[in-house]
């Protein structure tokens, strides 16, 4: 047989045996290396169970710890035995006990027969690969790594830092160019024997012994010296997570694995009975060939890495609770906040809902209850309208609401009469918030109220104070929301232009000029109202300048431009 198998085993011997018998049944010689950490009982038990197969060998056991030389030494020993004892072998396939052939072996043999000179080994220079665990790429060849990354992390890190500090660099022997790649390869006899019989092998071994993760670079680098034709990809499907740990395959991956274009997959969970059954039985029976679609596999595992490292923006839950500044988005979607608009316009909320198609709430942070749209008492996600529940954690309330309604734009009203003090900074700092403010418009409510003027004056002073603090937040350098602020006087002079800008930015409907304007409340007597406040010694300044006798608005003056902060 032209293909020989090296199998590195350290656990799940029953599965290793099953797969080895599968290879052997197709006529492939199999050479085992069993990790020295395995107890002797288990080892000899395994040797005995394989003893009925003539073309199997066991080689001297090395201690194989992740990222150390032991794995390379084991592979070298096994490869030597395989080449010496089985002269017919042309391609040597390196596998592990957790590997599982995905396609009928005859397909692999045919494939290799058509490419007798080709070495299949993923091999790329360090500059070109993104996988750098622990922030080490080229340095893994230039520094020395005598300590275990798993067991002696502190020493490992200290020694790396020390070498960097003193500027220590190893010289790479004979100027070979370090390459890296998947450790699961399939090499030709010519290439492999050239590596093993190289007169300089001692030099290379000495060098790679102290390289970090040599099993991903020893053969990858040296095969570049001898191979006639390298195809830089692995015939073994293996996916790695963000820590460089291989993903496991389970029974529910069966359909996915059928779509792989690889010949072998690793790692298979030892108890994935269905996978072993499906792929190890008679090729004509269970193996349903499916059009290869490796992209789908890539996507699924790339998504897992993304989920673990970046998560879903705007989601706060039991296993994602980002520290402040690490949220990757305070909320999950854009939303709009209107301050003063519902005071100035009588039908602002229904008008906005009609114009934008968005969900328009009233004052979500009103003191007595949460004013959801259409007077609902419970909102998406079963959010309650209890003000106490909302105030218990306002930020959680807002982020939950935006998360629960993803896919539907939320708009709500805000004003100085609301409970804004714990939430205004969160909103101001959230790039998803679009905040439009007509300052001083809260005075309209007071102007229309039927309260004693002394109370009104007091309330006006309080609200002005709150809004002034609020504006400081919106104008601060930390504010990241899209914020527009007009004084009331500015706004009523030309209301359509700012409204158009805001609606365009919400952008749910196609851009068109507003057909219908919201109805502005009657402001007759409002300037006098402000003057009375002034006469009482209060200074209402947030509304802008209202001349005492407005007459007709002066059309000659340039229109006030809204200003946009960030």
């Amino acid at each position, binding site marked *: 047989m032209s293909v020989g198998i090296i199998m590195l085993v350290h656990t799940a011997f029953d599965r290793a045996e099953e797969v080895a018998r599968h290879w052997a049944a197709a006529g492939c010689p199999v050479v085992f290396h069993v990790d020295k950490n395995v107890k002797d009982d288990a080892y000899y038990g395994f040797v005995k169970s394989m003893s009925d197969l003539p073309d199997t060998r066991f080689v001297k056991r090395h201690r194989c710890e992740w990222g150390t030389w032991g794995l390379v030494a084991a592979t070298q020993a096994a490869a030597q035995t395989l080449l010496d004892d089985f002269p017919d072998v042309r391609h040597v396939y390196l596998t592990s006990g957790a590997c599982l052939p995905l396609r009928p072996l005859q397909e692999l043999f045919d494939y290799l027969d058509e490419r007798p000179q080709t070495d299949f080994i993923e091999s790329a220079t360090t500059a070109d690969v993104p996988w750098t665990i622990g922030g080490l790429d080229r340095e893994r060849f230039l520094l020395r790594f005598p300590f275990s990354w798993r067991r002696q992390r502190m020493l490992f890190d200290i020694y790396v830092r020390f070498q960097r500090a003193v500027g220590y660099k190893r010289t790479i022997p004979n100027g070979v160019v370090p390459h890296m790649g998947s450790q699961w390869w399939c090499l030709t006899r010519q290439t492999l024997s050239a590596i093993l019989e190289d007169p300089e092998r001692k030099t290379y071994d000495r060098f790679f012994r102290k390289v970090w993760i040599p099993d991903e670079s020893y053969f990858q680098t040296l095969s570049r010296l001898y191979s006639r034709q390298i195809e830089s990809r692995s015939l073994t499907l293996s996916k790695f997570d*963000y820590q460089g740990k291989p993903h496991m395959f389970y029974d529910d991956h069966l359909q996915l694995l059928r779509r792989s274009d690889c010949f072998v997959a690793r790692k298979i969970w030892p108890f994935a009975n269905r996978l072993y059954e499906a792929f190890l039985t008679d090729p004509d029976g269970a193996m349903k060939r499916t059009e290869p679609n490796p992209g789908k596999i890539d996507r699924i595992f790339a*998504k897992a890495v993304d989920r673990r490292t970046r998560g879903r923006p705007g989601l706060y839950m039991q296993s994602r609770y980002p520290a402040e500044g690490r949220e990757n988005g305070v909320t999950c979607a854009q939303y709009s906040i209107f301050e003063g608009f519902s005071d100035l316009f009588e039908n602002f909320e229904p008008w906005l809902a009609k114009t934008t198609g968005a969900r328009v709430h009233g004052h979500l942070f009103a003191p007595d209850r949460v004013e959801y749209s259409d007077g609902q008492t*419970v909102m998406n996600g*079963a959010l309650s309208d209890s003000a106490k529940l909302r105030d*218990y954690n306002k930020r959680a309330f807002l982020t939950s609401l935006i998360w629960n309604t993803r896919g539907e734009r939320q708009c709500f009203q805000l004003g100085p009469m609301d409970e804004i003090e714990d939430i205004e900074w969160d909103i101001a700092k959230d790039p998803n918030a679009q905040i439009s403010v007509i300052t001083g418009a809260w005075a309209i409510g007071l102007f229309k109220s039927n309260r004693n003027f002394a109370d009104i004056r007091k309330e006006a002073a309080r609200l002005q104070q709150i809004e002034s603090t609020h504006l400081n937040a919106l104008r601060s350098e930390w504010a990241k929301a899209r914020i527009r602020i007009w004084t009331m006087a500015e706004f009523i002079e030309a209301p359509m232009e700012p409204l158009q800008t805001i609606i365009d930015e919400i952008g749910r409907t196609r851009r068109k000029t507003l057909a219908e304007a919201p109805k502005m409340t009657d402001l007759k007597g409002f300037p006098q109202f402000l003057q009375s406040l002034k006469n009482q010694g209060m200074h209402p300044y947030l509304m802008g300048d209202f001349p005492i006798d407005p007459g007709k608005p002066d059309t000659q003056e340039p229109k006030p431009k809204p200003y946009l902060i960030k």
Partner: protein
Amino acid sequence: MFYVSFLTSYGMRWRRKYAKMRAYGKKYSMRSVSDNTSAIRSGDILLFSTFRNENIRLPYFLDYYRRLGVSHFLMVDNDSEDGGRPYLAQQPDVSLWTTRASYRRSRFGVDWLNFLQRQYGHGHWCLTVDPDELFVYPFCDTRPIRALTDWLDSSHVRSFGAMLLDMYPKGRIDAVPYRAGQDPIEIAAWFDPGNYVIDRNPSYWNLWIQGGPRSRMFFRDLPKKAPALNKIPLVKWDKRYAYVSSTHTLLPRGLNLTYDQWGGEKASGVLLHTKFLSTFGEKAEEELTRKQHYAGSVEYKAYAEKIQKDPDLWCNWSEKYINWRQLEILGLMSKGNWA
């Protein structure tokens, strides 16, 4: 800064010792009913639970967890009077203890279980759940619990969080009677998908989660008193570990870090909490008279009042349970890095 953190760590050490000591003291209040612990093999997944008068739930409970691949159940019966004890004593994979001691004074069962965990749990993955809690984790419909624990082992993770998700029926809680052996989710099929608040406990580092129907209905005006929903039920046990309050908090504190603080998501599950079944009314009344629950049973007082008047927890935005994928899409749990 160093001294402060050193002092807190040292304080935590003594709190842990104290919890373990209490557990040891409770050893004598428990009597073994059936001891099958000799059947426990290395690598077995063990389940620890304490119960009182839950006979009707036990058949489904055992069945559910056997199917997930739990190998042995270690249960403490707190003076049941409903036949649960003889039923469990017959089960070959259950080891049963019984005690008449006070639930409250054993810190709501924690002391009893800490003792058993120390005795039998060392080196095993231990699942600690109540009889009304059904553990759901990513891929639980296609992969046994062993797949999860193997993956956690290979990721060097020692503890796995699963938030309590209150399930409730549509309509009156007592409308459909629960039968022994029935899947309680058939009746209590609904849950609140998105009204939870989270805070971080600065001394124990665990998250403190509140919300759900109990907050929405019973604690509208007293949100702070609403029950905690964060739980860490699955732990690769070591005899140095101890639960501090229910399964909400563990010591050493590092075990409580089941969440990511850098924006990513760790894997997590959910405990479907099927407390709100037809059996609830009786239970609430009994608990109220026994006064053996947390904070003077304030929770049960709140229930009793509300349940009399308006026993429907369901609302327009309640979500009907389908499977774990639905919970993961809603953001109640996460696959994390597991694919």
